């Protein structure tokens, strides 16, 4: 039976794979669903159609860093929360600041994080992020002690609904944090 011959069945297979997947599926993975060769373009077109078909429902098909995945729309969260009081923790500022430094300055060592935050970074903070699989050690810095270099993972992007690091909220520019207009007159910065 040829898949491309029956577009409805083709879409049904894709949709079912995405509904049952426990991780985002890339177009490359979705190709494997079919015994015969399928063009990436055909899959992309079908994904667009599936995405459109679900508009306005409780669930949406989203494109993430590592592929496509169905998720419940955030508007539904209050209802679902009544059913499921168990939720992952809301992380403390120490955890979120550490995550931000790794996300925006990666790759960074623990020392880099400490020098920006001005405090020791507890093992628990880094461990929490490692356990959530939001960060990983991608190498070691060639300095004494060879400290690990941390970077964010694809799962971090997926869990925050981001396609790439470029989608991170833009940083406040250092210049914008400054109260304007009271620079010393001889300031050579930007006239």
């Amino acid at each position, binding site marked *: 039976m040829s898949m491309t011959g029956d577009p409805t069945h083709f879409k049904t297979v894709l949709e079912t794979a*995405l*509904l*049952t997947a*426990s991780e985002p599926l890339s177009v490359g993975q979705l190709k494997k669903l079919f015994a015969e060769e399928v063009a990436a373009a055909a899959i992309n077109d079908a994904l667009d159609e599936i995405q459109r078909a679900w508009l306005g429902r409780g669930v949406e098909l989203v494109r993430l860093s590592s592929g496509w*995945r*169905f*998720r*419940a*729309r*955030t508007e*539904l*969260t209050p209802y*679902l929360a009544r059913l*499921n*009081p*168990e*939720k*992952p*923790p*809301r*992380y403390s*500022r*120490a955890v*979120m*600041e*550490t*995550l*931000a*430094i790794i*996300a*925006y300055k990666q790759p960074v060592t623990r020392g880099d994080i400490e020098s*920006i*935050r*001005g*405090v*020791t970074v507890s093992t628990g903070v880094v461990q*929490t992020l490692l*356990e*959530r699989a939001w960060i990983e050690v991608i190498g070691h810095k060639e300095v004494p002690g060879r400290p690990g270099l941390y970077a964010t993972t694809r799962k971090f992007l*997926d*869990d*925050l*609904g*981001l396609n790439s690091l470029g989608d*991170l*909220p833009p*940083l*406040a520019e*250092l210049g*914008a*944090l*400054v*109260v*304007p*207009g*009271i*620079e*010393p007159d*001889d300031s*050579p910065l930007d006239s």
Partner: protein
Amino acid sequence: MSGVSDDGFTLEAPVLPDGVPLAHVFGEPVLALPQDLFIPPDALKVILESFEGPLDLLLYLIRKQNLNVLDIPMAPITSQYMAYIDAMQHERLELAAEYLLMAALLIEIKSRLLLPRPPREDEAEVEDPRAELARRLLEYEQMKLAGLALDQLPQAERDFVWLAVLLEQTAETRLPDVTPVDLRQAWLSILSRAARNRHHQVTTDQLSVREQMSWILRQVDGRDYVPFEALFEIERGVSYLVVNFIAILELVKEGLLRVSQEAAYLPIYVRSANTATEPA
């Protein structure tokens, strides 16, 4: 304790001053204690603990007064900072070394500003002793705001859930794997969900007591009487014996164990509170 955080101590993202600078108070020493310091003593701990370190505390002091980070009035800021440090020490809060290091840095910068600058015609610009501190404050603030922004993003499982439609695999009876890390994660979400769980902190010591409690209950389960000494394995050392003894006391307190002795110097017997109350 409620209401404390309403006294202007909400530590949300600092409101960035925009437009007209209000902070032309430079050079005028602030003689009064910063009004922030009139805090009920039990609230102080909570407030101080909510700072993420000396940079965070300094930023708070600066932003609260709409001061310019690039032109920090060192004298008043240093004295305010020191007031916080004193308060922390007074409350015997464990003070991270970084706080003291920063205090030393502030004092050093302040004293360098007091020194007359050597006239050096040849050099166009003289490094402001505050420049490095300002750079660090701004960089930290940038990351602090970025952390807040990240926290605002919808987060998987916290703010939305993935789909979990059942896919029956080939009649597999594989059971889920669980690691100690999973247990730790589970505990984190319990902690995060209920404020009252802060009272449920468990230390390793308590844990070994609980472990012994379970062990003792198993020993006495289904038996009429167990000699007191039979519950102590002498060769396991003093700390074990102490923990074991505490475990027995704890079980008695919780009404799970009965300990009895007919008369002085006679053997002590232990039995489960569950078995029939009729002595044999």
